[in-house]
């Protein structure tokens, strides 16, 4: 396990196996009623062929901006995950762990606000 790339290998294998398993699970157990709409190229609800410079409904804006905000907060979790072990070695593991819980808790409160305010309702 000295090679640092072993972890990467694990990560890739997990991704491949996970996706293969779930795609095939839905093929085996799911019902399949193909129709022309469903078999069309998937393009997030927009017609796949035509001018790409059309105006997009403003409803997408809310979802997109909230996605960006919550997505980008994840950037703080990576350095935390990398350095957690060195803090544990110094006996500060609990403190650093609780710090991350507080951070995630604040994100959760933000999400709760978004949900209760109805920002994610489509209509």
């Amino acid at each position, binding site marked *: 396990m000295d090679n640092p790339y072993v972890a990467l290998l694990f990560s890739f294998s997990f991704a491949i196996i996970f996706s293969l398993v779930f795609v095939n699970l839905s093929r085996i157990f799911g019902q399949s009623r193909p129709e022309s709409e469903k078999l069309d190229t998937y393009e997030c609800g927009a017609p796949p062929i035509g001018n790409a410079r059309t105006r997009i409904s403003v409803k997408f804006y809310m979802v997109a901006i909230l996605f960006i905000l919550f997505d980008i907060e994840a950037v703080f979790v990576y350095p935390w995950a990398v*350095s957690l072990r*060195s*803090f544990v070695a110094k006996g*500060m593991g609990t403190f650093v762990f609780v710090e991350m819980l507080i951070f995630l808790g604040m994100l959760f*409160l933000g999400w*709760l*606000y978004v949900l209760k*305010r109805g920002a994610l309702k489509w209509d």
Partner: protein
Amino acid sequence: MANEAVFTLEPGALSSLAPMSIVLATAFLVLLWDVIAKPRDRGILLGFSIAGLALAAIVSLILWSHADPVSHTIFSGRLAIDRFSLFFNLVFSVVATLVLMISRDYLIREQIDVGEYYALIMFSVFGMMLLAAAADLLMLFIGVEAMSIPVYVLVAFNRSRIRCIEGALKYFILGAFATAFLLYGIALLYGQTGTTSLADIHTFLEGSSGSHVLVPVGIALMIVGFGFKIGSVPFHMWTPDAYEGAATPVTAIMATGVKAAAFAAIIRAFLAFSPSLVMFRVVLWVIVALTVVVGNIAAIRQLNLKRMLAYSSIAHSGYMLAALLAIEPIWGPQTSNAMSSLLYYLLAYLFMNIGAFGVIVVVGSRENEAVDVRDWAGLGFKYPWLGAAMALFMLSLGGLPPTAGFFAKFYLFSAVVHAGYTPLIILAVLMSAASFFYYLRVVVYMYMQPSEGACTPTVSPLAAVAIGVSALATLWLGIAPSALFPFLEWAQRSVAVLL
């Protein structure tokens, strides 16, 4: 791992974060209370916010009395919970409480009384407290953003008025621009010194021979960034538009809390840069002179009270910036004097501005915002208390004894004169004499014009208390200025210990 993180958790570090944590927790509580419990009367949210601010102020006072070492940095020197930041915590709590009290009527009148307003004010107060405690350029940057982003939203809060969102866009673009400059400057300083800690930068600059080319460029860019934030000439273009466009209580917090927090950060940063500041004396001199002249001259033309106060706040930024000229390369009595007079000036400036904006809020109505001074004709006779309060704030802003404004100017100008900038101060005194022209115009309209004013003030008890407190503070600071000086000295000395 090769790179061990250098991080220590000092004993008592978490409890000294209490004022900020309380404010932040109140913000979240107010935000969620509004969407989950949906109270019909938002007065309870106002109560919560003020209770949170009061608690933060009390905790700050306790920390002040327990602050055994004068300077106390936590999280490996990232934040300084010293008497300087505790002093500012108290200031921000008082400012935000007064602003919330004058906001209530305005929000109901404009039908924008939603919980987010109170939460955003609290979030921005959190940013201000962080900014005043920043002992590291990283914390300074986070504080600036945590303070500014809620204020951008607050300026745009009254979305139904086109002026509001226009002012918000202008404020945002120039604010973000300023932050970008600030950051670029910080990056260059970091590149040369290899650290973002203000204390370490101070040590580096003390030991350096002055051949580091990135340091002056970095400091210059930071001056531009700060210059935008406090609205000093030539970086002031956004100020009148943003002040006029924003809802009046929001203008009040922009002119007071935001500016005070920016000055707190400037004081910390400039004291850290003090060994290298000599080469910026000329630049600062020019900025101060321009700010004082342009602010006062442009204000003379304004009949719109909010624009007039915007230019007046530019002029006051100029006076306060002058105190930075007195900073010596090595901390001495001259620097110490200048810094306490700057803190005193800030305090006086806060109360008279909040009071003035408070009177503007209660004089206006939904149909007529009453920002045109001509609408104020005869107000002094119809509403004697309101008229007297506004007259007091105007005279104090102009600097007439025995108000706070006079002593603030007196202490600050004499500190700068002692540093050898007599011509600049002569200019500033001349300009503040000229400023009476536009401050007195308000008084003249209120008392010496026939009573035909179109405005119909409605003074609620809450707003009356806020205006009364501001008026009393303006008077008290003017009558007994020496009572406050020991506190200011402790506050500024704690910054010096940090270096």
